């Protein structure tokens, strides 16, 4: 037997028209286009360079914080406002480790500086990962499938976490100085390239590539992508989506903790509310990218980072609303986000 005799078969996979293919590629060109338009509007090369690097760094950090959240939503339809708690807790745990390793932070050695940061990151990720596990069991599990309850309960979790931070670390914000080697900038003529921003961009890019690799190349990653499309069918193939979900939830919480450390070092100031503040941007990014889409989340995060920095320079009064405007525009163009996951 053969179905290739079916004359419809070859036509069904013939490449779609050029316009359609370009439209599918379009989201990937938005970030480069924004950078070019930014240069035209700003007109000042050094300022543009600084803003672009700042925007990319900010975008990468938001991506790190948002990547887990988008998968959590895609896999189990869970709206988790508690995600902001992991960002704050990660920042506080990381800051505590770095303050405890003050000698390494101020030593004139790149390696000791980095060792302190790595120790802070690993500790923060371990703590927020563990916290994520507990949060899923205690707070999220009882409200599966009920969105309104999820919003209320996870918001409650966020508030409790903020109070716990006040209890443990005191009511005041904590200043955090970057380690010696990550302070300052490399200066080329008029262009100053801040060292920490370069590190943030590099770290974000590595996380993105690693996540992408895991989602495309490993069986576990395939299961997660399949589960985002159709969780029921993944179960019918014999896999427990609950287990996948717990894994993604823990990994996403740990990444939020990592993002919290990065954000804290970026702002050089840590507050219990920082998680909630940045969570708004995180949600915008998850929505712009398309729920459940890691690649969309990446593109959306870079857009948001650039938008915040460019408008902050060009039209400071608009800066606050610019990302909400960005979201509205993207959703009018693509109601399901830039790179939606095909729900099968």
């Amino acid at each position, binding site marked *: *037997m*053969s*179905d*290739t*005799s*079916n004359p*419809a*078969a070859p036509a*069904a*996979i013939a490449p779609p028209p050029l316009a359609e293919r370009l439209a599918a590629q379009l989201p990937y060109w938005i970030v480069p286009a924004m950078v070019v338009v930014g240069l035209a509007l700003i007109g000042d090369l050094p300022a543009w360079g600084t803003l672009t690097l700042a925007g990319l760094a900010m975008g990468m950090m938001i991506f790190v914080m948002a990547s887990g959240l988008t998968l959590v939503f895609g896999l189990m339809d869970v709206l988790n406002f508690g995600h902001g708690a992991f960002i704050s807790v990660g920042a506080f745990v990381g800051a505590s480790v770095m303050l405890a390793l003050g000698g390494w932070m101020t030593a004139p050695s790149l390696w000791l500086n980095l060792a302190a940061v790595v120790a802070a990151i690993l500790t923060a990720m371990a703590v927020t990962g563990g916290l994520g596990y507990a949060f899923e069991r205690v707070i999220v599990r009882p409200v599966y499938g009920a969105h309104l309850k999820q919003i209320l309960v996870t918001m409650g979790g966020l508030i409790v976490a903020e109070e716990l931070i006040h209890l443990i670390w005191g009511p005041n914000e904590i200043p955090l100085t970057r380690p010696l080697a990550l302070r300052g900038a490399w200066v080329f003529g008029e262009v100053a390239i801040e060292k920490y921003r370069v590190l943030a961009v590099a770290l974000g890019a590595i996380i993105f590539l690693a996540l992408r690799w895991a989602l495309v190349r490993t*069986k576990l990653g*395939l*299961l997660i*992508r*399949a589960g985002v*499309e*159709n969780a*029921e*069918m*993944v*179960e*019918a*193939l*014999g*896999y*427990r989506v609950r287990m996948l979900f717990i894994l993604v939830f823990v990994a996403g919480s740990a990444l939020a903790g990592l993002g919290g450390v990065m954000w804290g070092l970026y702002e050089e100031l840590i507050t219990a509310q920082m998680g909630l503040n940045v969570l708004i941007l995180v949600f915008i990014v998850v929505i712009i990218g398309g729920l459940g889409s890691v690649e969309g989340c990446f593109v959306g995060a870079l857009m948001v980072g650039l938008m915040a920095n460019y408008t902050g320079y060009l039209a400071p009064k608009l800066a606050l609303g610019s990302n909400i405007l960005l979201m509205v525009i993207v959703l009018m163009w693509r109601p399901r986000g830039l790179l939606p*996951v*095909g729900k*099968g």
Partner: protein
Amino acid sequence: MPDALPDALLTLAGVHTHIAQYHILQGVDLTVPRGGLTMLLGRNGAGKTTTMRTIMGLWHASAGSVTLDGRDITAAQTPDISRLGVAYVPENMAIFAGLTVRENLVLAARSGPLADDRLDWIFGLFPALKKFWALPAGNLSGGQKQMLAIARAVVEPRDLILIDEPTKGLAPAIVQALIEAVNELKATDTTILMVEQNFHMARMVGDTVAVMDDGRVVHAGAMAELAADDALQTRLLGLSMDSHQ
């Protein structure tokens, strides 16, 4: 309604299923003999898909029992039922559109890497899958998606395969190909429970038949018997099978 035959692989006894506040299955009795193909017929909304989903644990029976190979699976979870050797080809196929044909099959092969000889057999049944091996499954045509959905169910040997309306929306040439594939499957001793609206297909491949109406099985017996009895067809299905070819 006959009780479970000694060689029944799957037995539903007095199964009731509620979906939300709706009482959909109202005491389904169904026996699927080991090694054969049982056709599940019935008009739209009779409860065929709901029966399949109840067997698979995607809905849970509120009363009655589902027994697989002597084991009570009424309250079992879907992944556990799957791992007892039950494969499911749902009505909407549920292929993973963002994954390639290969990746769809990799996930279906739970126990390890894809076996070459098994793949060759599948490619023999569905050559299109070989051709579009590395293509995202979402790009396949409707018929090819159906073939992928069936391939996913047979990528490793299973004891029981549930197939819900495989010919839905397919061209006659593909239906013929599907009949041949199902006949090959039957030759492998796999037990099949199939829902079908296409009576031509039903008659070609069915060994036994159960007809549902309003959430109950209203007739069960040999396929040949129903196929030969126009009056019975008209009474059970509202139409003669011949008029559906």
